[in-house]
Structures are given as structure tokens and as C-alpha cells.
């Protein structure tokens, strides 16, 4: 009989309340993972989250939870600048770790985290795990097969809303008034928050990035949430140019502001010498690419027309964990990440969506910021 893994969650905020807690409350999830404790620095939030979702214990800090609950894994859904410290504390206590995106703020932190992981012999999954959805793998295979010829260029956009407009931040009571202002402070901004989806998808399909340069600006420098006003500390609009190890040049745009692109949010196009790949459908809830097409893949007819046209599509249920109620709940990709961690633990194997790609993305983001500040293109040292 398979062991049921015991999980503790730190950070009862937006993705926990809308995503992780509802998903882990489902009977099928509980056959593999039982959420036995939650923690939050706001005691009322921890308590009400536990009560709402039937979690037996709640705590005021990660340390208290580690001391007071018997856990196999820790789920980290705190604000990004806290991820590193939380993960190191969990690893020091010998727990397996799921960490939300982005894994850390700096490359130095990511190196330390992966070293601690290896030292402790625990398993780590870092969001967003695009490799867990089959379309990602199909795109990678297609590119590697040479169907597009040499991938010369690409672009990908994630231009969206500011978090302060979300429903979970504008309700009543401690579970519906989650403060979004940390998104606009140091260590945050759109790069590790929304653009990261595009960067993760592009690297999952094309491989690692060699060099990066970027510009950034502030589209809405003043943000208001309820009574609080903030002058944003980091840019809310980033334009990133990436030179991939493969030679492809890709543009990524990410913004925490309204006024979106005509393209599907989080979608991507790759331009090869023999054809174009366009992601045509992205699931709004998970960010998973659901469909793509290839046009060209051979010669070129009259200007503006392509020769050959193929479409590829998978429903969300192509992800084995997305069945039944899980298809109706939000942030389902986090559930898939957590289940991947559970399976990796139970099967004693390396998890997919492990820390190496996440570390590469951390370095990419850190160096994109540096490039924007200094005007100098930056070379990346990590690969995956």
C-alpha cells in the first residue's frame, strides 16, 4: 500500500486559497498527499484557511509548523522574496520542497538552494512546470527534429493586469483582502511573476539562453490598493532580448499592466528557416499551451502564403492529474507540480520541473534586470 505523504503549506495567500488548498481538498488528491498543516504570518489568515479547508493544524510561522507538525514535504506559496529563506529552512529540516515561481531572486541564492537540496538528498520541484504538459514536449521534439529548419527568431508576450485589481484582494475579511503590493517592490515585478511563464516555455522548447539584454520602464508608477498607495520600486514593463545557445534570437515582453496583446497571453511564436510555429491557444488558468500550429515546413510559395500546415492540440485532460473537479478549480498547474513532487518522492526519482531550469530562469531574470540598468548585454553562466 502506498504511503500518503504529509504536506505543510507556508503562505496562505492568493494561489494557496484559490488553488493549492481547494485542489488538495479533493478526495483523489488526498489518496497521495494529505495537507496536515498551514502557516501564515497573519495568524487569522492561517486559522481561517485551516478551518475553511479542513486542515487539522495551523501555525504562525514556517519554523513553528516544522516543529509542530510531522511533514514529508513543504509547499512554499509565500511572496517571491521569501522563497529562498523558506526553502532553505524546509531543507534544513529534511523536508522535500515545492516552491512557487520564481524559485529565488538571485543566482547566488539558487546555487545555495540546489547545493542544500543535494546535500540533504531531498527532492525539489520549482514552478512553473511546463514539461508536465504534453504540448510542451511535442513542441520541443518538433524543433529538435528540424521540421522548422533552423529556428532563427521568436517572440513571446505576457502582458496583463495588475494584481491589485484581482477579486481575492478586494473582498471582505482576512481571506479576501490579500495585500498585492509586494509585487511592486524589490525582488518582484513582472519578470519573475508573469514573464517567467514565457521564459519557462521558451527555454523548455529551445533550451538554455546564452546572452540577454533588456529595457524596462514604469507604465503605472503609482499603484493604489484600498487605502494603500505605493510608488513602484521596480519597473512594471520589461522587454527582453535573448540569444539562445542554439543561436535563436527571441523577444519577450512582460508587463503588470492592462492593454494586452492580440496574441494569446503567454503564447509564443518561433520562426524557422523552413517554417513558423505558433502557439494558438493557451489555457488562461494554468498557462499550459493547449494548441500550436506549424506553417511552412518546406518551401515558400508566393509572398504571404505558406506551404504546408499542421495543427497539434491537446485538451487539459492530457495532463493525468487534471480530471474531474480539478478542471474546474483555479491554478491547476500548481496541483500538477505538487503531484509531480509526490510521485518523485514515492518513486524515488528525480522530479521533472526540477531546480536546474528554475535556476537558469532566475539567472536570466537577474541578468535582464542588470542589462536594463547598465545598458550592457549579460552572459549567462548556467545551463540545464
Amino acid at each position, binding site marked *: 500500500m502506498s504511503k500518503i505523504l504529509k504536506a505543510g503549506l507556508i503562505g496562505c495567500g492568493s494561489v494557496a486559497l484559490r488553488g493549492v488548498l481547494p485542489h488538495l481538498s479533493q478526495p483523489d488528491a488526498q489518496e497521495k498527499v494529505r495537507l496536515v498543516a498551514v502557516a501564515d504570518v497573519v495568524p487569522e489568515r492561517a486559522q481561517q484557511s485551516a478551518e475553511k479547508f479542513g486542515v487539522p493544524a495551523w501555525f504562525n510561522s514556517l519554523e513553528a509548523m516544522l516543529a509542530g507538525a510531522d511533514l514529508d514535504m513543504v509547499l512554499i506559496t509565500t511572496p517571491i522574496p521569501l522563497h529562498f529563506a523558506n526553502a532553505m529552512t524546509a531543507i534544513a529540516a529534511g523536508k522535500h520542497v515545492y516552491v512557487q515561481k520564481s524559485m529565488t531572486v538571485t543566482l547566488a541564492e539558487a546555487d545555495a538552494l540546489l547545493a542544500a537540496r543535494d546535500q540533504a538528498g531531498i527532492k525539489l520541484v520549482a514552478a512553473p512546470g511546463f514539461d508536465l504538459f504534453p504540448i510542451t514536449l511535442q513542441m520541443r521534439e518538433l524543433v529538435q527534429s528540424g521540421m522548422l529548419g*533552423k529556428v*532563427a*527568431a521568436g*517572440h513571446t508576450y505576457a*502582458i496583463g493586469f495588475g494584481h491589485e485589481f484581482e477579486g481575492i484582494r478586494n473582498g471582505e475579511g482576512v481571506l479576501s483582502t490579500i495585500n498585492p503590493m509586494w509585487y511592486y517592490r524589490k525582488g518582484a515585478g513582472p519578470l519573475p511573476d508573469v514573464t517567467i511563464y514565457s521564459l519557462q516555455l521558451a527555454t523548455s522548447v529551445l533550451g538554455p539562453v546564452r*546572452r540577454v*539584454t*533588456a*529595457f*524596462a*520602464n*514604469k*507604465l*503605472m508608477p503609482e499603484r493604489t490598493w484600498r487605502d494603500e498607495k505605493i510608488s513602484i520600486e521596480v519597473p512594471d*514593463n520589461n*522587454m527582453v*532580448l535573448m*540569444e539562445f545557445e542554439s*543561436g*535563436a*534570437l*527571441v*523577444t519577450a*515582453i512582460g*508587463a503588470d*499592466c*492592462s*492593454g*494586452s*496583446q*492580440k*496574441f494569446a497571453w503567454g503564447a509564443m*511564436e518561433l*520562426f*524557422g*528557416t*523552413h*517554417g*513558423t510555429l*505558433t502557439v*494558438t491557444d493557451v489555457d488562461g488558468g494554468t498557462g499550459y499551451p493547449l494548441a500550436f500550429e506549424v*506553417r*511552412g515546413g518546406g*518551401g*515558400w*510559395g*508566393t*509572398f*504571404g*502564403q*505558406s506551404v504546408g500546415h499542421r495543427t497539434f492540440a491537446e485538451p487539459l485532460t492530457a495532463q493525468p492529474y487534471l480530471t474531474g473537479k480539478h478542471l474546474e478549480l483555479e491554478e491547476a498547474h500548481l496541483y500538477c507540480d505538487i503531484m509531480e513532487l509526490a510521485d518523485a518522492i514515492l518513486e524515488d526519482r528525480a522530479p521533472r520541473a526540477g531546480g536546474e531550469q528554475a535556476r537558469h530562469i532566475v539567472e536570466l531574470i537577474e541578468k535582464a534586470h542588470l542589462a536594463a540598468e547598465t*545598458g*550592457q*548585454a549579460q552572459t549567462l553562466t548556467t545551463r540545464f
Partner: protein
Amino acid sequence: MTTKIKLALLGCGDVAHRDYLPEFHRIAETAEIVAVCGRGEARAKLTAERYGIRHVYTDYQTMLAETEADAVVNLTPMQMHYETNLACLQAGKHVYTEKTVTSTAQQARHLADEAKQRNLTLVCAPCIMVWPQILLAKKLVDEGAIGEVHSARGLGYGGVPPWAGFTSDPSPFFATGGGPQRDMGVYPLHALTGILGPAQRVTAMNARAQASFVIGDGPFVGKTVPLEEADTWLMLLDHGHGTISTVEANNSVQDTKAAQLELFGLKGSIALNLIDGAAPIHLLQTSPKWEWRDIEVPHARAGGPDHILGVEHLVNCLQNHTSPVLSIEHATHVVEIIEMAGIAAAQGQTMNMNL
């Protein structure tokens, strides 16, 4: 009745026959082509016969010496633009030139001086800033339809090898002094600097996806064309006043579902096709509710880039004694952006523009 402006057509290749001559009738009340010059005599004669042009030349110096034309429409290969534009100005002719006006900013500034000294009008393609879809987009932005715009992107692509549908040798588009920046990148570069203001800083990356290609059909089928300029470019522009944009220009894109120009405002976006004047504009407004709609653009040409509007602009400027919107200053700025992008890409360093 106003006298018609007399035009000499310099170059009768594919661009002349595809984009200019078939549309010329639309400005025939205010202009007439009195001379045509082409390197190949047969083609020049054929052009003259088909379009009722009185004088035929195969040498442009001779044409400039003899013609009564007021202005020259310069549709020569890009690499010849500086030399021929200079000769036209020095012969006392006004000029409409295809893009890019010159290969270097220094050459462009020289032409500007020559035109100014001689009190001549110099109109530079691309004439995107007089195209109806751009004028409409600009109007929507100015009216506040999408709120303030501090972020935008553009894409110029095409001319993808193997070549199809062309009857002239396409090599100049890919030779030194050509390349995707000068051929197609100029469209988004002109549009973005025209709408958002001049660029103050530029950075870029470039790469070479292919070393050469083989022409797929037409009279030059089988010819190997080397790609002497990098065929893949990504650029970032800082327009100052808190506004940035990104431009992609390459010979690598066979097709795309992305818009060729997008303006991101705080209250919505505009997405449009830069080249095809018949395509509608897509407008997103985020309040009262998130809604995309298409806006038809009144257009005179059935499809494709309406280049004759650039010649019409020259004619109007000459008849009304006005300065062109499609100015040598704007064209020089874009040529300089392209130069600076090359340096930025080579050095990995953001470059300041000379303004």
C-alpha cells in the same frame, strides 16, 4: 488649373511594376511621368510603352542632363540610392526616394544639406506615416482611446528566400547595404518613431540563420544569393519620456499570427498590419469591459502597401509649397537607428542616438 508635376522614373524593376506604376493613374491629374530610365533597354522600352512614357533612357546621368522633369522617383536598388539621389539633387531635381534613402546616416545628412542648399524637396519612403491605417491608429491614440502609450512593438519581415514571384534579381536586398533592417525593419521603425517620437537609445542583437539561399523560381531560378547582411535582428528603442519599444526585423519569418505593429496603452491596445492597407485595425479597450473589435480602414489600393501615396505626398508638397511629413530628417533618424543597432549588437552595449 495647376500644372502637372513632371516626374522622371528612375528604375523599372519589380517594385516599380508591382507597387507604383499600376497605381499611378490615381495621381494622374496632378502628375505625369515624362521619362523612364532602366539599366536594361528592353525593359525600359517595355515600361515606356505600357505606361505611355515619352522618353526612355538607360543611363541616369543622361536622363538628368536632358529631362524636363521637375522631380525624380528613385526606385533603384538600395545600394544605388545615395549616388543617384545625390545626382538628382545636384541636377536640380526634387526627389522621391525608396528606402532606405542612403546606407549611412552621414550620407543621409549630406543629402539633406544638398536639398536644403538648393531649395529642393526630398521625400523619403517608407511613406508609412501617410498610410491610412497609421493615421487612424494615431488618431485613436491622440483621442485617448487606449490611454497613454508607453510600450509598443513592431515586426518587419518578408522577402523570405527562396524567392518567388519576382522577375528581377533579388540579390541587392540581401547584399551589403541591404538586409532585413533596411528592407523591412524600416516600416516598424518609421511607424514607432513617428508615433512615439525619436529614439534616444538603441540596443540590439543580431544573428545569421542562413549563409545563402537558392532562388526558387523566375528568370533567376537556381542562382545562389549570399546573405551578406545578418538576416535576424532584435532591437529595443528608448524613446525617452518613459516609453520603450521593441522591433524585430528579419528574413527568417515565413508567416506570423502576431500583429506587425502593436501599441500598448493603459486602457487598451491597438494592433495592425503595417504593410497591407486593406487589413482592419484591431482595437482593444479594457473598460467598461474587455473587448476587442475590428475597425475597417478606408483604403484606395485593393491590398498591399500603398506606396503611390508617397509620390502623391511629393506632388502635394511641390504644388502647395509645404515641407514633407515623409522627411529626410525622419529617414535619417531611422538610418542612424539601424547603424547604431549594428554597433550595439556587435558590442553588446546600448548606444545613445545623436539627436
